């Protein structure tokens, strides 16, 4: 399970918008997975199962936060590797913020679909399986996510 941590952290950070929230989500996910080990069928993909748990936990947490008005989006000011070189650093920081903001602007169901396919490299079939939706729905969510992202992108 340790081997899956880097991918889970990346996915969770993309979902929540911050590394700290992402790590909390991963911890929650791993604890949940260990508690429900008996539900995982050996021979099936462990990563898909863990990503599904992460997705479900994210939606649960988001629902509970909604009531208190918490918005999980927090790009750390001290993001690594951007402090040494002033000009390049500022540019990198903006890119970081821009990409993160663009993701956060997406509805969660589009965000998770795009992250699984475009960042984690899951096939449409596997991603649809993780999200428990038909492939057609997945395809449409990814396309809508991309259309929305295009509005944020710098003019190419």
């Amino acid at each position, binding site marked *: 399970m340790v*081997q899956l*941590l880097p991918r889970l952290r990346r996915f969770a950070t993309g979902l929540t918008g911050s590394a700290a929230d992402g790590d909390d989500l991963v911890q929650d996910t*791993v*604890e949940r997975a260990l508690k429900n*080990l008996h539900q995982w069928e050996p021979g099936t993909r462990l990563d898909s199962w863990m990503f599904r748990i992460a997705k479900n936990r994210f939606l649960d947490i988001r629902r509970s936060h909604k009531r208190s008005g918490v918005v999980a989006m927090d790009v750390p000011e001290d993001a690594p590797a951007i402090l040494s070189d002033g000009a390049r650093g500022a540019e990198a920081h903006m890119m970081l913020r821009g990409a993160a903001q663009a993701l956060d602007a997406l509805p969660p169901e589009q965000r998770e679909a795009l992250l699984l396919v475009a960042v984690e490299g899951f096939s449409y079939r596997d991603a649809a399986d993780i999200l428990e939706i038909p492939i057609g729905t997945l*395809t449409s969510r*990814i396309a809508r996510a991309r259309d929305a992202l295009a509005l944020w992108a710098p003019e190419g």
Partner: protein
Amino acid sequence: METDPTRETLSAFIDGELPPREMERIAALLATRPDLDAWVRQQETLRTDIGKSLAELTAAPAPERLVRIAQTAPISWRWRLGQAWQRPMLRTWIPAGATLALGVLIGIAVVPPGDIGSRGGQVVAQGALASALNGKLASEAGSGPRIGITFRDHDGHYCRSFDADGQAGFACRGSKGWEIAMLATQPKAEASGPYRMAGSEMPDVIRAAIAARIQGEPFDMKAEKSARDQGWR
């Protein structure tokens, strides 16, 4: 003139999810349609940027708390998920051959006296422990000894790990029954939260000994059941 491909089609093109002929058609179309081509290129740039941003945000090693929790996955999982779980230090530390030939019996007095005995000079499982090794599956809860992983050793014998009454060990099926290969006192469960799983408390000495003896991987549920149903022959 053909109608423009939908956003879904272009998006699936980016992800390589169209049938080969359709992939070719869209690629040819993009060569003649700068507007569509620009959208596709923009998406590819965005994907790279998002990937980079996330990589930067998660560049630091996973927090210790995460690694510690992930490491509490039970032993049967660890094997299935890859050999990285095994600590090389432990492998070399155990003088595998000699130790296993003798069998390590630590804290044997704590095991219910009827569960382990001697048969023809060999320490074997008896009573409830023998019953569990014969018939119980790893997935079965309930009282009495619990079964961990089932595997074949290098000589082709069936072996099963177990824990019972604060003892953990493994036994291999031989001519005299379930011959105890190793037995050790289980460390007290650490106060590491409510999610610590039973199998994770297997002593390192047992885990390392199994690592030295196992051939291939532990059985999955199907293979375990099949071996049991055939009487471990």
